[in-house]
């Protein structure tokens, strides 16, 4: 079966010639919806991280603000808003302000391209995958500028580490992503989801899919600076890394983008490798596929993303941090060659048509 795909952008486009006011209201509503979604996701993720971390560690986590601490992150957010915003004397004030904007914009712009369900996607670009990789590169500029403009040695060290780390791992992430592009033959994210109707790429593409999935997950975790790759802000080494001099709301923008980037990574992983909102379909077993279709696609997407987020959190609360040279070795000497070989093996698979349920 095929899903009725119509993104919000297209709907706005339909409205546009007729009545500019309807269209404007539609755009505004979209902005509101994305803001609400982002805020709620951010707050929920931070709360979930704290609770899950606590239970990994035999403790309870936030308990006293609201029922089982559910209002904890709201209190934190409000406090951060009411906290003083310090710009160090020797800092480059303009870039100091610009850095969180870039970091935040990089995250937000990726978010509008994510297909969360057949009709829940703000903009479905025909270069979707390329767009996501390109725009997420803004984040690294935010971190670099933030570290530089703070005029602090620890910040600068953290920024340099982060810069080198993120750009390095972007190479591997791109190679892993290309595997999926190869198999699905399109850059459009909705098209990639659509192409997984007969099975998810993670297992449909023989070993290539699972290797690409692993590489993408590792590289993605490194790109969003989470343990075991949290060298940019490794507390025990660089005090707070690139955001050492950031306080109040500006710090919270970094903080929020960090968590939402985790969501973006999980959503991208599930879109590319786990079929996005596509239910679990196995080939042409109509009965099984029919049963799976009962669960709405939005829920499928949420489930997969949640699972990925949980996995990333699990990594964080289990593993120690790598050393910076090991991190680089892992990327350039292990992941990159494997990724390259994997890409060409996949290309061979595509050319020979040798994968499960080939169309």
């Amino acid at each position: 079966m095929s899903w009725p795909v119509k993104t919000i952008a297209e709907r706005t486009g339909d409205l546009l010639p007729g009545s500019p006011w309807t269209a404007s209201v539609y755009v505004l509503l979209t902005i509101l919806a994305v803001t609400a979604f982002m805020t709620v996701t951010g707050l929920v993720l931070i709360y979930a991280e704290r609770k899950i971390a606590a239970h990994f560690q035999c403790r309870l986590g936030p308990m006293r603000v609201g029922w089982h601490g559910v209002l904890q992150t709201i209190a934190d957010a409000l406090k951060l808003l009411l906290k003083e915003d310090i710009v160090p004397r020797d800092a480059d004030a303009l870039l100091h302000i610009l850095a969180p904007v870039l970091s935040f914009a990089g995250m937000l712009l990726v978010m509008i391209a994510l297909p969360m369900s057949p009709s829940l996607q703000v903009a479905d670009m025909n270069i979707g995958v390329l767009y996501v990789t390109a725009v997420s590169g803004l984040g690294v500029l935010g971190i670099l500028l933030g570290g530089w403009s703070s005029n602090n040695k620890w910040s600068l060290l953290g920024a340099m580490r982060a810069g080198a780390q993120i750009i390095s791992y972007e190479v591997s992430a791109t190679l892993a992503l290309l595997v999926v592009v190869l198999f699905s033959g399109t850059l459009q994210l909705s098209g990639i989801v659509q192409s997984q109707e007969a099975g998810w790429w993670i297992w449909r593409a023989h070993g290539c899919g699972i290797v690409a999935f692993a590489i993408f997950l590792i590289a993605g975790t490194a790109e969003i600076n989470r343990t075991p790759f949290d060298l940019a802000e490794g507390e025990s080494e660089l005090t707070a890394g690139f955001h050492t001099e950031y306080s109040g709301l500006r710090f919270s923008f970094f903080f929020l983008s960090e968590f939402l980037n985790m969501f973006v990574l999980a959503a991208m992983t599930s879109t590319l490798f786990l079929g996005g909102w596509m239910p679990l379909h196995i080939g042409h077993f109509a009965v099984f596929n029919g049963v799976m279709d009962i669960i709405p696609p939005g829920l499928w997407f949420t489930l997969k993303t949640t699972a990925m987020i949980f996995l990333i959190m699990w990594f964080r609360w289990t593993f120690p941090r790598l050393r910076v040279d090991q991190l680089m070795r892992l990327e350039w000497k292990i992941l990159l060659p494997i990724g390259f070989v994997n890409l060409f093996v996949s290309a061979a698979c595509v050319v020979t048509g040798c994968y499960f349920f080939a169309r």
Partner: protein
Amino acid sequence: MGVITDNLPGVLEPLPGGSVLVTAVDQLINWSRSNSLWPLTFGTSCCAIEMMMATGAARHDMARFGAEVARPSPRQADLLVIAGTIVKRMAPRLRTLYEQMAEPRYVMATGSCAICGGPFMYHSYTTIRGADEIIPVDVYVPGCPPRPEAFFYGLLTLQKMIREGESIRHPGERRRPVLAALPEGMTLDDIRKEMQDLLSHDANVNMTEAAAEGAHYSAELKDF
């Protein structure tokens, strides 16, 4: 406080219901501040084990209060827990750390050393006899070191203080910073003198009332 909150009460309070609104906003602000006390990872000696480690660990779990987000940078921290002895050499650094925290900032002195020098009060040529000679302290938690529960009691005490403050009507009323900064060449004695001035001017606690409050304090705790 900021531009709005400085001018807000004067504008709002004459309006019907304005006073209630100010109070409600005040409560919201205090609620968020008191429930989100991120400590600075700062500890000098024995108390640090109990204050930063044992309280954070699984048995006692500072996270229940939302205070497990220990920030290594003072810019992002709200709460400076002085856990351990402060000596002459450390005192200006402690002052700097305090100055570099973003406002509003709160200080807890835990353990005898931070309160008055404790075991090192006499015959020690370096120990500062009380962290409040360096920076304004909000809450004192006695013990040597205090057990983790005592620290939580101190945290509750601090939360109570924040909640009862009027952060809009009287912002900064809680206390005045002793000095805006630690200028070059300022000695310890200068700080101490200024601190004493502060104590004599407007930090005079009514002893009888405070004593009564202290005595009945445990009973009130249940309402937290």
